[in-house]
């Protein structure tokens, strides 16, 4: 009843009620503006100029349409195939190999499409770089394809124009700029695509005054320069974390955000896997992390020390000097600094020479030179570091970008093109650029929306999403990868490359260009192909092409850097301070904020803080206490005249007297999910000696009035000493006893203590055919949340928004529980609630455990949740009446209730509120209505599909053939899914070994018999009496 009084608009035209709309409101084929009507309709109706002679044709069509429509309810917006394309079957997915790129971020992917519509992204296992893994951002990039806030065609300022007009005007203006000798600048983020670079070169050939400037909002320019100084190569090398026995990271969040986390995750995890999942090995790498805020990588470390940004260089130097002393090399001199565990790290490094790795997240070339020297001292080049396979993820040049902004301010730029770049937002000098932009006579942005930079540009010529594009990528020397479109262009967009080719006066078919580029560039390197077409088809099919002829002459790379000079420079720059210091970091979900309008990413909880939909000022408990601040209090952070107001988040593990703030928030023109979320911290990035510096000393943090509640999906930080939940052990203990750290509850009976599983009221369910189960390795899980977003994408999980997260109603079916250790004694519950100042962290993926004695099943009054013969706990949405008894009785609290109708609801204005966004829906999974419970189904639609495929082929499902979305998304293979009745499956083999080892059920003592087992977390720590640990952490 309420709804009838609401007004729904067919479009913004109706809302604005503009004159053309009113005029055409009652005409059946409202076609007010030819430029706005879809092009295919043009063909159908003969455009706006239907002629007299077409009368019979249109009439006939109309008659046919009317009589068809009379037969049954008209189908809205679903256009069935008239001629079924070959090899495409309705409701059967097609997979296309493609490549995800976002600036310098790379992943080889498989795109699952349904009837020409991408619905899921998976990792491509053929890639030696991403190895079938994905990150949360890769998973979520799918949703950006269906972003309603994107532009649907080119614009001149606010005016909608067509491509012909845009091309005509831009070409003539480019010509006039060139004629008068004006500088043309193409400003982009890192471009991984060699073909695109060739296009840019073609463009520059046509317009000689053009220059290509690359910059990265998350710059690694310092590293590139350091390698130039040290080895004469301006590159970033390949790191192999799997070969490193000692890993020391100085502020590099290499599992979350640093350079290429997806590439590093699996090798890192391989070094940490142990027991059955680690091919029987009983050793693991030891990971030291020294950093300011607690990063996801730091949370995985065995030992973690904290430093202030003003100590960044000194820590590297001190580590160098300590190692040098141990290996008998000369000290580099310079100032020293004392950080907890630094000595220990040096000892371990010295003991594992050639099998260790030191990385630094610093953008200061001097620090990176010291790190290079240290790795060189340890003999890591050629073993864990491969300079012969440089990576291309970060090609940005801070100095060139700075010079460009200077030029722009001075009015020396005639034309500028922005592609994949939003410097007004994400460059520290964005405000200066915003002032300078109107002075540039021709400014063009290829952004898909009128973002902070594009809205100031004269023209926006939107480039499509990568899933609509042809492209290639060279993430690493010798590794190539193709992007192919998985859908036709949704809006009237055109690829950046096609636009440049058009303006360069060349044929603008980039597909042909790309093909011929590959024919001339890579085909000669390939062997074993009869023709280029065979090569091309193979590359398209595989998505990746890797040459075996990559240079391997790296081992001999000789260090030529001057470490003493670097040490002097570092000592010069890094001085002790007494005040507050600001450290800027990227969030695993949001990165530099380019995909801030993606509600999946906005709602993805940060791995460490579990906060979403905001950035905040992370302070240590001690600092917060000293300043009289509590969680959610607003503070004003001031550095050098700039200030921002953020809520406080008390962060265990944060260095005292520092405040960490994430960049990537505070978008103003990003779209409805991005705008106004958090504050923009990029203006606080500074330039030191031509390099971006992501920290600031002398920051002022003052209490502001008011509070802002931070939306967190987990508000209780510690595990309260509950060993039935998280079980962990030290490596040395594990080596002695594989069951170390296991907690085996016993129940008292008249016959003495027995294991819980021996007594039960229930008879259990038979699982005669399959028994689907899961093993989750707590040692491999790095907490990255790829599974969370992968599940969200696969299972049509709703986004609920900031306020509903605060109301503790997020809908994720899988979550990563994060627990901090506490210093308290076991029974002191009040003290157990408080995390240690520098805690140990454990990540525990938590999803429906598919209990064999499921507490939820017995309590449902209407049998809406029942047990299958394959060990699945099933949820029948249609039968659910919403008593929520099952959710209350779930010991794992994994059931989710639809508190509202989340689709077609203006209060939840995310992708389920518009037809474009709904294209992301997986047609195999029901969209749940309000008032019903939902939960993890073990991707029952995939199980069903896999079984049917096997049945059609008259065979049993192969071991590991069927995978859940979470297991498939996991970059570290921490989740093993499979049939526990099939002895050949990985899960069976793993459990066979680990049932008497690390495998445990969470809350075993309530005997619900989950189908999910966890493997204990093993920390590579030396035994240390508890008292000593505590003193050290207080030190």
């Amino acid at each position, binding site marked *: *009843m*309420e709804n009838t009084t609401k007004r729904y608009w067919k479009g913004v035209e109706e809302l604005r009620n503009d004159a053309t709309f009113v005029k055409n409101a009652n005409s059946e084929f409202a076609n007010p503006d030819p430029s706005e009507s879809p092009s295919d309709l043009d063909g159908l109706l003969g455009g706006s100029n239907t002629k007299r002679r077409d009368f019979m044709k249109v009439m006939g069509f109309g008659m046919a349409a009317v009589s068809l429509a009379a037969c049954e309810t008209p189908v809205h917006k679903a256009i069935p195939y008239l001629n079924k394309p070959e090899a495409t079957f309705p409701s059967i997915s097609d997979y296309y190999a493609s490549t995800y790129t976002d600036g310098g971020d790379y992943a080889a992917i498989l795109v699952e499409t349904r009837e020409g519509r991408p619905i899921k992204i998976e990792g491509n296992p053929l890639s030696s770089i991403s190895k079938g893994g994905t990150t949360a951002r890769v998973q979520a990039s799918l949703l950006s394809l269906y972003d309603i806030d994107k532009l649907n065609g080119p614009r001149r300022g606010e005016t909608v124009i067509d491509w012909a007009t845009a091309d005509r005007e831009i070409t003539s203006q480019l010509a006039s700029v060139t004629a008068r000798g004006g500088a043309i600048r193409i400003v982009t983020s890192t471009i991984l695509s060699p073909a695109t670079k060739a296009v840019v070169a073609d463009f520059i050939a046509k317009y000689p005054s053009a220059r290509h400037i690359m910059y990265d909002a998350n710059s690694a320019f310092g590293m590139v320069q350091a390698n130039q100084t040290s080895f004469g190569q301006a590159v970033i090398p390949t790191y192999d974390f799997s070969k490193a026995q000692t890993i020391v990271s100085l502020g590099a969040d290499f599992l979350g955000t640093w350079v290429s986390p997806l590439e590093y995750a699996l090798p890192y995890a391989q070094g940490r896997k142990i027991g059955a999942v680690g091919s029987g090995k009983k050793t693991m790498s030891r990971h030291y992390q020294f950093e300011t805020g607690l990063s996801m990588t730091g949370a995985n470390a065995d030992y973690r020390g904290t430093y202030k940004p003003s100590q960044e260089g000194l820590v590297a130097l001190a580590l160098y000097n300590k190692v040098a002393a141990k290996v008998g090399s000369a000290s580099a001199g310079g100032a020293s600094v004392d950080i907890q565990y630094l000595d220990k790290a040096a000892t371990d490094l010295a003991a594992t020479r050639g099998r260790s790795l030191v990385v630094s997240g610093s953008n200061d070339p001097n620090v990176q030179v010291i790190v290079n020297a240290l790795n060189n001292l340890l003999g890591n080049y050629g073993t864990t570091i491969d300079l012969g396979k440089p990576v291309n993820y970060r090609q940005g040049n801070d100095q060139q970008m700075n010079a460009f902004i200077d030029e722009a301010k001075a009015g020396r730029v005639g034309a500028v093109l922005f592609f994949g770049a939003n410097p007004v937002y994400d460059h520290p000098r964005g405000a200066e650029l915003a002032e300078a932009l109107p002075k540039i006579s021709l400014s063009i942005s290829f952004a898909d929306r009128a973002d902070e930079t594009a809205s100031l540009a004269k023209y926006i010529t939107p480039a499509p999403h990568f899933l609509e594009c042809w492209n290639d990528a060279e993430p690493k020397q010798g590794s190539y990868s193709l992007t192919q479109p998985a859908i036709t262009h949704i809006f009237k967009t055109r690829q950046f490359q096609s636009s440049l080719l058009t303006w360069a006066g060349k044929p603008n078919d980039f597909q042909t260009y790309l093909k011929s580029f590959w024919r001339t560039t890579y085909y000669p390197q390939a062997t074993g192909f009869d023709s280029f077409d065979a090569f091309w088809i193979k590359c398209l099919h595989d998505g990746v092409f890797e040459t075996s002829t990559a240079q391997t002459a790296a081992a001999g790379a000789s260090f030529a850097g001057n470490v003493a000079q670097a040490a002097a420079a570092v000592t010069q720059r890094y001085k002790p301070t007494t005040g507050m210091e600001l450290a800027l970091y990227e969030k695993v979900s949001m990165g530099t904020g380019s995909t801030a309008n993606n509600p999946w990413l906005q709602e993805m909880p940060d791995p460490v803080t579990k906060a979403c939909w905001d950035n905040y000022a992370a302070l240590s408990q001690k600092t917060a206490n000293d300043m009289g601040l509590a969680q959610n209090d607003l503070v004003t952070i001031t550095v050098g005249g700039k200030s921002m107001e953020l809520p406080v988040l008390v962060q265990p593990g944060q260095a005292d007297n520092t405040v960490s703030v994430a960049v990537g928030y505070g978008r103003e023109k990003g779209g409805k999910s991005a705008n106004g979320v958090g504050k923009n911290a990029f203006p606080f990035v500074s330039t030191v000696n031509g390099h971006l510096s992501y920290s600031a000393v002398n920051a002022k943090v003052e209490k502001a009035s008011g509070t802002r509640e931070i939306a967190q999906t*987990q*508000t*209780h930080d*510690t*595990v*309260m000493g*509950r060993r*039935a*939940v998280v079980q962990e052990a030290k490596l040395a203990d594990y080596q002695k006893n594989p069951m170390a750290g296991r907690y085996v509850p016993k129940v008292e009976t008249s016959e003495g203590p027995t294991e819980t599983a021996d007594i039960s009221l229930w008879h259990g369910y038979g699982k005669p055919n399959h028994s689907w189960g899961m093993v989750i390795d707590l040692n491999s899980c790095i907490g990255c949340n790829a599974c969370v977003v992968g599940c969200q994408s696969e299972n049509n999980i709703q986004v609920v928004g900031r306020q*509903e997260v605060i*109301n*503790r*109603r*997020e809908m994720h079916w899988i*979550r990563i*529980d*994060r*627990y901090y250790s506490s210093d308290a004694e076991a029974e002191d*519950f*009040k003290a157990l609630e408080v995390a240690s100042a520098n805690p140990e962290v454990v990540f*525990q993926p*938590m999803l429906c455990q598919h209990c064999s004695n499921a*507490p939820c099943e*017995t*309590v*449902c*009054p*209407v*049998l809406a949740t029942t047990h299958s013969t394959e060990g699945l706990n099933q949820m029948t949405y249609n*039968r*659910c*009446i*919403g*008593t*929520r*008894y099952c*959710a*209350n*009785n779930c*010991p*794992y*609290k994994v*059931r*989710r*209730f*639809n*508190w*509202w*109708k989340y689709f077609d609801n203006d209060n939840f204005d995310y992708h389920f509120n518009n037809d474009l966004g709904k294209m992301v829906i997986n047609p195999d999974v029901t969209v749940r*209505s*309000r*008032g*019903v*419970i939902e939960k993890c189904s073990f991707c029952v639609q995939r199980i069903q599909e896999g079984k049917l495929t096997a049945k059609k082929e008259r065979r049993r499902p192969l071991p590991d053939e069927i995978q859940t979305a979470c297991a498939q998304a996991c970059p570290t293979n921490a989740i093993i899914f499979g049939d526990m009745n099939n002895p050949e499956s990985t899960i069976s083999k793993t459990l066979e070994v680990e049932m008497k080892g690390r495998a445990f059920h969470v*809350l075993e*003592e*309530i005997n*619900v018999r989950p189908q999910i087992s966890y493997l204990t977390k093993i920390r590579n720590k030396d035994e240390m009496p508890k008292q000593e640990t505590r003193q050290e952490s207080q030190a």
Partner: protein
Amino acid sequence: MSHVTSAVRTPLVTGGKTYADVTEDISRQVEGSPTREWTIAFTISVIVLLYGTACVFWTWWEGLGVWGLNKTVGWAWDITNFVWWVGIGHAGTLISAILLLFRQKWRTAVNRAAEAMTIFAVLCAASFILMHMGRPWLAYWALPLPNTFGSLWVNFKSPLVWDVFAISTYFTVSLVFWYMGLLPDLATIRDRARSKVSRYIYGAFSLGWNGSAKTWARYEYMSLILAGLSTPLVLSVHTIVSMDFATSVIPGWHTTIFPPYFVAGAIFSGFAMVQNLMLIIRVVFKLEDYITVEHIESMNKVITLTGSIVGVAYLTEFFIAWYSGVEFESYAFINRATGPYWWAYAAMMTCNVISPQLFWSRTIRRSIVWTFVLSVIVNIGMWFERFVIIVTSLHRDYLPSSWAMFHPTLFDISDYIFSFGLFFTLFLLFAKFLPVVNMAEVKAIIKSSSEKLPVSVSGVAKGERVTNPTFNKDAE
């Protein structure tokens, strides 16, 4: 029904009431025009009901998101209110059934109103059963109805299904018992009625009562049979409601003590509510001679007894939580007393354990004001008891990652207010249009327990079978 009562016992009806007085005093309300007090009270109740209905409608229209529940705390005020109202509903049947079997004559003055209260309270409770569902329009799926959905049946393992049976049975039996008990009084009013309409209506509802010996005999048998049927129900309903919690795996819910503890708590709160209602009725309707301080004192004794049982149960829970050695159970109880909801626990302990102990003092237990205030406190305490059991157990259960707080919203509160509107509207309608005291049964005890002997038997209502009074010789 009559038996010898010792003369030393204080009379149950004071003021030397005759049969005629009884009829007159009690029928006065029904026959007269509404009093000012009644009109005001009724208007307020209806306004509250309308406001509440609007809020309930909005809850229904928008979804349960309007409440403060979350992924961790799936029940809060909804089920708290449900259990609270069901508990209140216990007193009626206890008074009319168990006290009947125990020959507690004082019950005759209060059983009618208490039974009416029971029925209305159960209705309020039922409204929360419907309201708490995500899709209340499908509530009938919880009934084992033959259907065309396939071989779908209800889950007989689910305590919620047991609830459906227990509460619907209880409601049916209570309603029948109450209505049967009304028959002689309805006939009395029918016979006294002046207007055709009321004669017709009361006549229809009195089911042709003719006051013959046979009718009375059947009435007596029927009362006994229904009392026998209801007695197990008094124990079963709250036992089954308690199993909603006791059969679960949640620490703080999974407790075998719940059935007796819930039954005692239900009687405790039910009697408190009866006290509140009767104290108002006796003043407003001038029934002080029928509902005397003796009645109040008797009920206060029941309150003290059941309150003490509840108190012992609270302590036993704590002891068992410690004695069991189950860390989750221990923590659940430590958290109740010292966690973020300590205030709810403190409110519960103060109201339910400490306050009824004041009734050990004769002065307090015979004081109208004290009784009224303490009864209100007991009902607040019992509401908190259910809140504590439901919310503090859920909000911190097994996995600390999911621990959450529950904060009520306007709709949690308004939907609770709705039930008050419903309850008082129905109760005031009852009080106006039906005799609030069972005239027939009170007359039965006048002979044995009245303060003075009736001087004459004039003015006896028509239809009433009058025998020569059997005087209590001892009293003379």
